[in-house]
């Protein structure tokens, strides 16, 4: 029987201890989920087990694989277990697959037996990957398909222990379910799975055992059913509560405030390709409108069209005026990239002086920083030296200092850990309520939209036709929820 145990694992750099005295164990046919925020060192635990610790990082403790005990510092010995006992399912599988080999070939090369092709096809089909995709190469696969190919590769290796590191990073909610099914299949085949993630929904769907990692060490562990329903520690409670699907849905309320933006029969697209057509909607001051839809359908393009960054193919947009051209602003998905990487954050804010009305805006900044709980010494740092949550709040502060009328937030929290996501999204709600700001929240997370938005719209398309916009604020019994 395959088992993996980690005993008193400590990982440290010269300056600080990252993980201290962590012990874990997972048995065959079982999934252990390790939950923790970015920077909590959870990925390093996986690295230590695989013997992939980078230079300058020291490890101590023991790794027990199928009853044999290894020194965690002996990466050479651990590497001999690759593909025989240990297998890794990495984050972003598209980067891990050989770029120019077909899915079937990548599975087949793991099988050292005659008729590997047939076995490979069987393994891929077992992971619910249709035959038509078997010949495709990684760049032709979606993220969810790639993760299933990886699972198929894991299923054909002899390795009984599978480490999965953030397998759903960058995936939509619906694709997350497909990946979850692939992991269930692996579990049914008797693999012991160590799932390292911050995705609370995935853990809810899959895990048998859960361990919360916070500040170097595991603070709570136990059976998933008990820990997730009644967490014992404040951290775990906060973590579990940050899952938007547990939040109450926002009640529908008819909007009475002014229309800030109006789009009329808008047709959008890029490079002559029509992505969506006949889009008619408007946003109100103080309201959050959520724009849902699967990735690639044209949500971001719609946002850019509204902002005036991409010309519409036809139709009209009436944009808010006042405050010069800055009445309409955008909150980006990757907040660390919205500041010039060659300046400190303070310098970037300071440069607002050059804008018309910039002096006034600059005077509002300290109060805004305080409102969002940001320390002033943060401004001395470069954009890449602060966390995503901090960066998103600084970006929000910079935008609000200019007193815009409307904010288009394009997946503003999808790269953030759940607790941070909750914090940022609640600030957004506050801003909408208190500053009467209209917000168009572009997201693929239906639960988030349900909990936060006053209005919900879905972009959906049939076959190859351009996408249309549907209002799903009040689900009508007659109209079925469109396919996401």
């Amino acid at each position, binding site marked *: 029987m395959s088992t993996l145990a980690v005993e008193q694992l400590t990982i440290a*750099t010269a300056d600080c201890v*990252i993980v201290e005295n962590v012990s874990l164990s997972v048995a065959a046919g079982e999934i252990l989920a390790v939950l923790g925020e*970015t*920077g909590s060192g959870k*990925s*390093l635990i*996986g*690295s230590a087990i*695989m013997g*992939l610790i*980078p230079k300058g*990082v020291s490890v101590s403790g023991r790794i027990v694989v199928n009853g044999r005990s290894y020194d965690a510092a002996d990466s050479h010995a651990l590497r001999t277990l690759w593909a025989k006992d240990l297998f*890794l399912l*990495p*984050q972003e599988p598209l980067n891990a697959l050989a770029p120019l080999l077909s899915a079937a070939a990548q599975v087949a090369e793991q099988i050292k037996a005659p008729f590997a092709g047939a076995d490979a096809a069987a393994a891929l089909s077992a992971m619910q990957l249709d035959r038509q995709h078997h010949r495709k190469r990684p760049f032709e696969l979606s993220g969810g398909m790639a993760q299933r190919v990886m699972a198929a590769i894991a299923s054909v290796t002899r390795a009984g222990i599978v480490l999965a*590191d953030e397998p759903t990073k960058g995936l939509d909610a619906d694709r997350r379910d497909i990946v979850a099914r692939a992991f269930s299949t692996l579990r049914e085949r008797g693999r012991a799975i160590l799932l390292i993630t911050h995705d609370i929904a995935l853990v809810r769907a899959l895990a048998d055992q859960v361990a919360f990692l916070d500040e170097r060490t595991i603070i709570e562990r136990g059976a998933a059913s008990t820990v997730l329903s009644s967490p014992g520690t404040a951290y775990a409670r906060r973590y579990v509560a940050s899952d938007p699907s547990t939040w109450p849905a926002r009640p529908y309320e008819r909007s009475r405030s002014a229309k800030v933006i109006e789009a009329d029969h808008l047709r959008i697209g890029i490079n002559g390709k029509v992505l969506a057509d006949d889009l008619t909607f408007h946003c109100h001051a103080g309201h959050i409108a959520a724009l849902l839809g699967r990735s690639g359908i044209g949500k971001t393009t719609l946002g850019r069209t509204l*902002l005036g*960054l991409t010309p519409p193919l036809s139709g009209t947009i009436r944009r808010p005026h006042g405050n*010069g*051209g*800055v009445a*309409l*602003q*955008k909150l*980006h998905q*990757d907040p*660390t*990239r*919205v*500041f*010039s*990487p*060659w*300046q400190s954050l303070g310098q970037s804010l300071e*440069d*607002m002086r*050059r*804008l*018309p009305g910039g002096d006034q805006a600059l005077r509002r900044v300290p109060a805004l920083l305080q409102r969002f709980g940001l320390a002033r010494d943060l401004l001395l740092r470069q954009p*890449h*030296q602060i966390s995503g949550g901090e960066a998103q709040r600084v*970006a929000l502060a*910079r*935008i609000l200092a*200019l007193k815009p009328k409307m904010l288009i937030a394009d997946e503003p929290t999808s790269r953030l850990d759940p607790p941070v996501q909750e914090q940022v999204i609640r600030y957004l709600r506050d801003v909408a309520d208190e500053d009467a700001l209209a917000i168009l929240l572009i997201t693929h997370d239906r639960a988030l939209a349900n909990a936060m938005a006053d209005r919900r719209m879905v972009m959906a398309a049939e076959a190859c036709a351009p996408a249309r916009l549907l209002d799903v604020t009040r689900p009508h019994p007659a109209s079925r929820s469109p396919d996401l």
Partner: protein
Amino acid sequence: MTAPSLDEGAVTRRSRPPLAIVLFGFLPLAAMLLLALLGPLLLTVDPNRQALSAASAPPSAAYRLGADNLGRSIAARVIAGARVSLGIAVAGVIASLVTGLALGFLAAFHAGWIRQVVMRLSDVIIACPGLLFVILISGLLGGGIGPILFGLWMSQWPGFARLTAATTARELATDHVEAARLLGFGRGYIFRAHVLPAITPYLTSLGALTVGANVLTISSVGFLGLGLRPPDAEWGAMIAGTMTFFRTSPHMVLAPAAAILICTLSATLIGEYYSARR
């Protein structure tokens, strides 16, 4: 599970150049440039003064690096040559850089026929062998500084224009430029605070590599006998003029060859350093 995100983004973006680059890259080139600038002050001997009786003299107290086949001091000519060789090489790069920068920005900011014209013209010129270009122009116009400079400029500005256009276009598509635009910043500011710092290492790298390549090109043209007009001391022409004595009096060739090697090597190291850093 690549490199763990311990110091993600802590790229060596602002690190100081390592000692090796300073020692073998910046210092020798700076010394050569200084030599070129101060050349006339350092010279105690006229680099064109001949003493036929001392022709081909090996290094001695009177002739530190020996004398060439016309009895001229090689040391003096190497120093005088720094002004000519490096001068042309650097002037060629500056002219190409200025032209390339201007046209590159134009192409990046105005996606339209201007961009098409600049890019297609660059494509054609880049596909042309630059050395052939310089050789032809020098040959047709009877050599001299002007034709060589013109040839270098003609064949090199497209490289700078393409690099500028490509990197600028890439920077203009970034989130931080988009954010700055939405906040209402003007083109000048975006250019200065967002684009210029991004493309500087690329241009520095290309510029340094091109200085090195130019020194070689000038020497190749000199080798073909189409270079500068005699008696101007230019390293390539010095080699070309004394190549024949390479095996009998190697000192005549080695001194200018070493000067070329030092300049090109240090320029290459600087260029490589910046290109690895970006």
